[in-house]
């Protein structure tokens, strides 16, 4: 057997190991499903999410309205389906911005070391001290409600989540001899970052971003719940929980229940997917 064949067998072997994590597979399916639903919302939703029907206020589950209707007769299922879009896009934006900034800062800190590292790490520690929710609430009270301001505020708040973990890994990676060898070849720093450091850090970035997504979704829903995020009549899960709230008093808990369960299930799915990825990509649980 030549080296080549052995290497090939090893590679095949690694692929074979990479199957069967039922929990992660299930979580991945839930995530994939909800993303699909968000993409196809107008096609699969049975009703216009904002179409009021005075004749069917607080209708119970039926063939016409699977999950019933809300206080103005809007179809709850259609609102959940359409609500997937803002409910997913907002945390996605948070994670995307935070990951981009966090990765850059982490690599920069690990690369430069010295006072640059101390300044970046110090600032990250300070930001880490403020819960994302508080920062989003403060920002929304200053700049007015809506999804944009809380998303930007939370992007900043989530930077340490990515950057602190990544800085350590980047530091380890940066001190590996192959980086020095690349420098000697005259490889420009940006190229080392982009083509060599980043690909080797990608597994950690992926895991942190996935877990962060779950947290961000929950936080955004909370912001909407307290009225500083998505504004009525937009269909958004957190907002649906809060606008369905009064209904509980008159025995109409359906909207709160369904939107609440949706949030919980999806957050859990992202968390399980994240820890599954962590086991798979990094070989360690979260």
């Amino acid at each position, binding site marked *: 057997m030549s080296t080549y064949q052995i*290497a090939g067998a*090893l590679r095949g072997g690694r692929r074979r190991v990479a199957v069967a994590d039922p929990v992660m597979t299930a979580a991945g399916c839930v995530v994939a499903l909800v993303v699909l639903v968000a993409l196809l919302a107008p096609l699969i939703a049975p009703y216009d999410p904002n179409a009021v029907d005075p004749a069917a206020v607080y209708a119970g589950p039926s063939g016409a309205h699977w999950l019933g209707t809300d206080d103005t007769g809007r179809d709850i299922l259609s609102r959940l389906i359409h609500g997937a879009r803002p409910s997913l896009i907002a945390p996605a934006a948070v994670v995307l911005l935070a990951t981009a900034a966090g990765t850059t800062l982490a690599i920069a800190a690990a690369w430069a070391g010295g006072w640059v590292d101390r300044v970046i790490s110090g600032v990250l520690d300070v930001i880490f001290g403020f819960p994302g929710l508080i920062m989003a609430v403060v920002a929304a009270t200053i700049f007015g409600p809506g999804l944009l301001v809380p998303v930007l505020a939370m992007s900043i708040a989530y930077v340490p989540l990515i950057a602190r973990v990544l800085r350590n890994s980047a530091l380890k990676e940066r001190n590996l*001899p192959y980086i020095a060898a690349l420098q*000697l070849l*005259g*490889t420009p720093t940006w190229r080392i970052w982009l083509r*060599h450091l980043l690909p080797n850090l990608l597994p950690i970035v992926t895991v942190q971003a996935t877990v962060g997504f779950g947290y961000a979704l929950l936080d955004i829903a909370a912001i909407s719940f307290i009225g500083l995020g998505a504004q009525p009549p937009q269909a958004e899960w957190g907002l649906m929980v809060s606008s369905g709230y009064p209904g509980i008093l008159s025995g109409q808990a359906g909207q709160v229940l369904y939107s609440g369960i949706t949030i919980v299930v999806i957050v859990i799915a992202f968390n399980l997917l994240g820890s599954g990825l962590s086991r798979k990509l990094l070989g360690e649980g979260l």
Partner: protein
Amino acid sequence: MSSPLLSLEGLGLELRVDGSYRSVIHQVDLTVGRGEAVGLVGESGSGKSLTARSVLRLLPPGARLRGDIRFDGMPVPQSGSSALRTFRSTEIAMIFQDPRAHINPVRSIGDFLTEGLVTTRGLPRRQAEAKVVALLQEVGVADAARRMRQHPHELSGGLLQRVMIAAALAAEPKLLLADEPTTALDVTTQAEVMAIIDEARAERGLAMLFITHDLELAAAVCDRIAVMYAGSVVEDLPAGALHDRSAHPYTRALLASRPSIGERGGSLRAIPGRPLSAFEVGAGCAFAPRCSRAQETCRTQRPSLSPAGKGSAACLFPGSEAPSV
């Protein structure tokens, strides 16, 4: 002949350890002429690798470098400058001890080899690949085209070291820094790799600074030997004079502590005491505590390199008679 290709004068280096500075190189004076091979020999921790890295300013953050490093008569560019990048990629190439650690495992061999040519020379990819394949064949890699597509884990250590040598040659440097290039390889592969380096050097008129702890190997492949102890060069002499004409007690003790094929029987003469780290060195000669010839002055006065025997030695009482250990 004008100035030497590489000259180090009064090189000193301090590294930050736990917030305070520790001296790891005290005094290195060394020159490498054009086309000359110089062996830098010393035990682990004597500062030989860091000496080579200092030349390229490839040092950990916060390192303090003293002294004068000149290449081709010009000072080596300041760190962080683009001139340094050009300098590193065109003038000097380095061959590392552990090739597996020095090649990004997620990139292919071809990517690694063409990296320098494409990014700093601006060579088109095709051209760079053709050049590199030719180099791989030159260093004895069969089936070079296929190797280019493989990843480091698919190659053996000896093969990877050849890839490393090819990468070094691709830059068309004037000086090769070889940092224990054969230490991680088994003995038969060692000989092959040394032969490849030797041949490539002869063909191109390359100068080499060969770092090793193998005194015999250095004597075999180099023109001149510089012996380092605890952060300083203690002796610098022609390779041919090593066995008979070395003047520094440390060099002589090293030679005496090695087994040789010629003389059988008898126990090896170990050097008493333990090797000092550079930062532990006091005022006097670093070797004094272990030296059989040490006098009172050796403990208070630090010798510097001065002519002795066929080269120069940093010893107050150099001599060529065997030390009585």
